[in-house]
């Protein structure tokens, strides 16, 4: 299945289901949500896509994103997106498999040291373990990771991610 969000496209061949979630779940007035929910045979993937180098992104919006990233506000937002998405799916009877949370930030200045730091920060913001560090009886979130396009491709060679329009090129208007 191919999923598109803005200028980014991900192809997840072994997906057994999935949908754009954030803009279609109908409760955006009270529940934040991740961009995509994808069902694999053994787990769900909650996927959040950020594209600060989108051709239509302005220097101001790029600067604001980087500020959000560095200040920790992005981790806060990601935390709530996961929490509400999980709650929504649970209430809809779709919390029957473990959930992994993947964040793809298409920003070529994010190096591996940043990604390690951001993954750790996201991991700390999520309730991966229960009280006293003990496992939950049922996991709220399994694994998580923050990626750039390069590390996504390296980690998931079977799930190619790409830009529809390269940075610096005109994309011919809104999609």
């Amino acid at each position, binding site marked *: 299945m191919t999923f598109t969000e803005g200028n980014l496209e991900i192809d997840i061949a072994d997906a057994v289901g999935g949908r754009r979630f954030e803009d279609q779940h109908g409760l955006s007035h009270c529940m934040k949500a991740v961009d995509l929910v994808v069902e694999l045979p053994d*787990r769900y993937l909650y996927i959040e896509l950020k594209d600060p180098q989108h051709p239509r992104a302005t220097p101001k919006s790029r600067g604001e994103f980087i500020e959000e990233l560095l200040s920790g506000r992005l981790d806060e937002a990601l935390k709530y997106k996961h929490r509400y998405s999980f709650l929504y799916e649970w209430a809809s009877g779709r919390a029957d498999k473990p959930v*992994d949370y*993947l964040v793809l930030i298409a920003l070529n*200045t994010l*190096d*591996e*040291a940043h*990604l*390690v730091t951001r*993954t*750790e920060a996201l*991991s700390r913001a999520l309730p991966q373990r229960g009280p006293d560090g003990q496992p939950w009886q049922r996991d709220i979130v*399994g*694994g*998580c*990771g923050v*990626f750039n396009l390069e*590390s996504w491709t*390296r*980690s*998931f*060679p*079977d799930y190619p991610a790409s830009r529809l329009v390269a940075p610096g090129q005109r994309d011919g208007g809104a999609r």
Partner: protein
Amino acid sequence: MALTRVELENFTAFRSLQLDLSPGINVLVGANGTGKTHLMKVCYAGCEASRSPVDDFARKLAAVFLPSGHRLKRLVRRESGADGKATIRICRGSLTLEQSFASRPRLVSLRPSTFASDEPEPEIGEWGHEPVESVYIPVKEMLSNAPGFRSLYAKREIHFEETYRDVLDRAYLPALRGPTDERREGLLTGLQKAVGGRVLVENEEFFLRSEEGEIEFSLLAEGVRKLALLWLLIRNGTLPSGSVLFWDEPETNLNPKLFGVVVNTLLELQRADVQEFLATHDYVILKELDLRTTTADQVAFHALYRQEETGDVVCGSARSYRSIAPNTIADTFADLYDRETKRSLRGLAG
């Protein structure tokens, strides 16, 4: 004038190295054993040789490298064989300082004042017409061990690299007469804030005068002592325009939160025409430089590495952090990241 080029042949780890230097900051990165410190010591010895007709290049080389018996032949690259010959060439524009020495010297001496070299001593004359002020900050902090060290070093054959004595000589210099320029005054204020006070010397002993009173250096954290040394060197005019600062692993024993102060100080000194050489293993130092450097700053990253085929140490230079290749520090993070991702995602990540 700043050092412009260094060439090493059959010297310690190097078979043949030619390196063009930035007049600003030269950052040396690379795995252990790729010669970063050796490169800095050679250049430091060259700077020192310009300042004194007595303090010639060969003697300084032996004093800072401490080869057994002060025999320079021990600095000839071992793989070059029994008939090997090492050559060092350092350039400052049109001025060149050159020194060669062979594995099989005709003269052998154990005294540091004469040398195991069969080559004519280099012509220091022209090189010395434009003496270069320089300071070498070694990895290990020395201020807390300073009292009595210099007199002991002068009288006894103790096995310490001369860089330790030299840095203490600089640290003990009294403050310059007259006002400090605005840029350096700003740096002093920033460093004072970071260390929590001013440095003073009483009977060869260093103290930090803070709000809590006077604290002996031996009671201060080592990282604070390093910043305090920098404060002293700026305060006493050791780092004027045209001088050269060598700093081996500034990150050692320093909390990463203070790296910003260090890097800002280094950049500001570079803007005041101080040439610098840093050897580092630290990502945060590199990233602070990357983030704080403006287009007007002159920073060169020199990545030393061993060629896979030959094992020879070679160097790739880059003008920006992202262009450093190979970057062993970034590679280490990439490895950590990949393993973390694999562990976290339980078989999903390849």
